[in-house]
């Protein structure tokens, strides 16, 4: 059986959900005729028709607003942002309408807003953003960031079946770079559950998205030096799998939180804070964060290379911490 790429896993998951439940539909820019800027919806217009695969005008706010309305009327909309950077234009609808309906008046808003995030492809400041922190302080939302093809498929299905608004951030760097054999049968990956990607006793790297691979490569390096690194892939940011975070913290006592969002105000702070409060007695060293510096994502290859966390930098920091 051919291996499935991360991007096809998203497509397959979406496709299967649309086959399973005719309340599920897709709307966004160029998702129909064109099949999406990254071909996530290739063939869907032909299969499901233009009432369920809708090419919208360029109006992110109205796209999300319309999804909210359709959800209130009993549908299960999936919104594609052509690049996740454009979710900024829909910020108000997501934060003030979608996220707050259930709490305010008991109306659930089962929508999914998904799109390509992240750097490494020389997209520059407007096609490389990691936007999770914009939404990390918004109760009512869920946020998932798959790193494998299996999770990409299992999480898109879980997101579509979820009763609340889910932001699904797919990393474009992984689209065609990661692939694996996927089960034939239907499966979901539960939102809010992290996955241990590598076990190790000496130090933990807590991360998600494309950085999972940087962490694993660093762990390989360090293993050669006899430093056993545990790698925890959060998979979801809202809700956070605190249990898994505290478990690895208590196990290794030395923690590095790694993410591709820039450092200050990034999601790492929350993770560190949970540990610093609830696993304090177990710590054998400072909790480190590794993240890009506080700048927009630069375009020029040498700048972007220096911007993104790299294996060597992770190895060095981890080495220091292990020796602490």
């Amino acid at each position, binding site marked *: 059986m051919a291996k499935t790429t991360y991007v096809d896993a998203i497509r397959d998951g979406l496709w299967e959900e649309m086959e399973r439940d005719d309340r599920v539909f897709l709307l966004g820019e160029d998702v129909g005729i064109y099949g999406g800027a990254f071909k996530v919806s290739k063939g869907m217009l032909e299969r499901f028709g233009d*009432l369920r695969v809708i090419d919208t005008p360029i109006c992110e706010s*109205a796209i999300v*607003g*319309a*999804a909210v*309305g359709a959800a209130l009327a009993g549908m299960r909309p999936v919104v594609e942002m052509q690049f996740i950077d454009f979710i900024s234009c829909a910020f*108000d609808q997501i934060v003030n309408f979608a996220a707050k309906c*259930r709490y305010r*008046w008991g109306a659930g808003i089962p929508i999914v807003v998904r799109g390509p995030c992240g750097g490494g492809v020389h997209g520059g400041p407007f096609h490389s953003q990691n936007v999770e922190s914009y939404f990390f302080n918004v109760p009512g939302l*869920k946020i998932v960031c798959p790193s494998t093809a299996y999770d990409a498929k299992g999480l898109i299905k879980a997101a579509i079946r979820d009763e609340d608004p889910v932001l699904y951030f797919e990393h474009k760097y992984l689209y065609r770079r990661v692939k694996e054999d996927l089960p034939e049968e239907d499966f979901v990956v539960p939102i809010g559950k992290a996955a241990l990607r590598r076990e190790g006793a000496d130090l933990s790297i807590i991360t998600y998205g494309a950085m999972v691979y940087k962490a694993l490569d660093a762990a390989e390096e360090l293993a050669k030096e006899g430093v056993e690194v545990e790698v925890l892939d959060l998979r979801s940011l809202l809700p956070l799998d605190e249990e898994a975070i505290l478990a690895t913290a208590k196990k290794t006592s030395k923690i590095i939180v790694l993410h591709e969002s820039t450092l200050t105000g990034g999601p790492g702070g929350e993770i560190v804070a949970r540990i610093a409060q609830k696993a304090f007695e177990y710590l054998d060293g400072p909790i480190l964060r590794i993240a890009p510096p506080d700048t927009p994502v630069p375009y020029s290859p040498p700048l972007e290379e220096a911007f993104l966390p790299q294996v060597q930098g992770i190895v060095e920091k981890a080495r220091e911490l292990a020796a602490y």
Partner: protein
Amino acid sequence: MARERVNTTKKDPAQLGAIERDTMVKMLHYMRLTRTLEDRIERKLYRQGKIVGGVYVGLGQEAISIGTAIHMRDDDVVAPSHRDMGVFLIRGVTPRRIIAQYMGRKSGLTGGKDGNMHMGDMKHNIIAFVSHLADNVPVAAGVALAFKQRGEKRVALCYNGEGATSRGDWHEGINLASIHKLPVVYFVNNNAYAYSTPVHLQMAVENVADRAPAYGIPGEIVDGNDIIAVYHAAKRAIDRARDGGGPSLVEFKTFRMTGHSAHDDAGYVPRELFEEWRSKDPIVRYERVLAEKGVLGREEIEKMQKEIDAIIDDATEWAEKEPYPGAKDLTRGVYFEG
């Protein structure tokens, strides 16, 4: 069709005959019920400090909510604005729950989670207003999209003031609805002010309906203080939407007879304007018509008002006895709880 704009502001409410007597009486009942309820909320409960936070009323605009929502079928969906109390009443939300809502009680529509007009209930097919103006425009389009996708002959109604039309979501939402000819009607109450901002600082056109051609949809300008005109214009637009004719933009000329909210004395509004518009009071005008046509006389109306007063008295007493939500309710219902 799509391009031209009908102006019925001048037309007199001739086709009254077209409306059934029951409906005529019902409309007056809801107009008076609305005014009495809002009067109780603003002039009494708010001033007595029994309602905290902001209070917005639709005094002088009652004809709009009622002359439009009267056409709704049970399964139609409505997204009212902050001056559409009449919509809630006509949809069957009880004054008891509404006053409880304003008083932040657990039995209010939001259980105390939100206040005043920020209420909704899908059991009544009413979408709760969010403060952020015009956010409901694309949302209403989405409701209509679902109707179209499922081939249902249902309609979505969306209400806003003229100030909200300056927001990007208003443009994006109507553009989206017009492209797909969605069954949604956009009602705009043009009451001359957005908080303290007059229309000429809100837009460089005279009428909001002047914007309908920009979306290839019908636009109509209606005397919002003449419920008969409102009734017929709303019927035209709603029938058109239901029959697959797509969205319409209906502008109701009216006037905000209060400050923006209970704390605002509207010092920036020339007093003459209040004088002028007081003489156009939609209830007084409607009752004159009903009398002329021999539909209802003074006595019957006084009897109606007595019943309404009793309803509001009862609702007030009931609501005041209702419990507040407790601390344990605080963290409930953020996410689905099964």
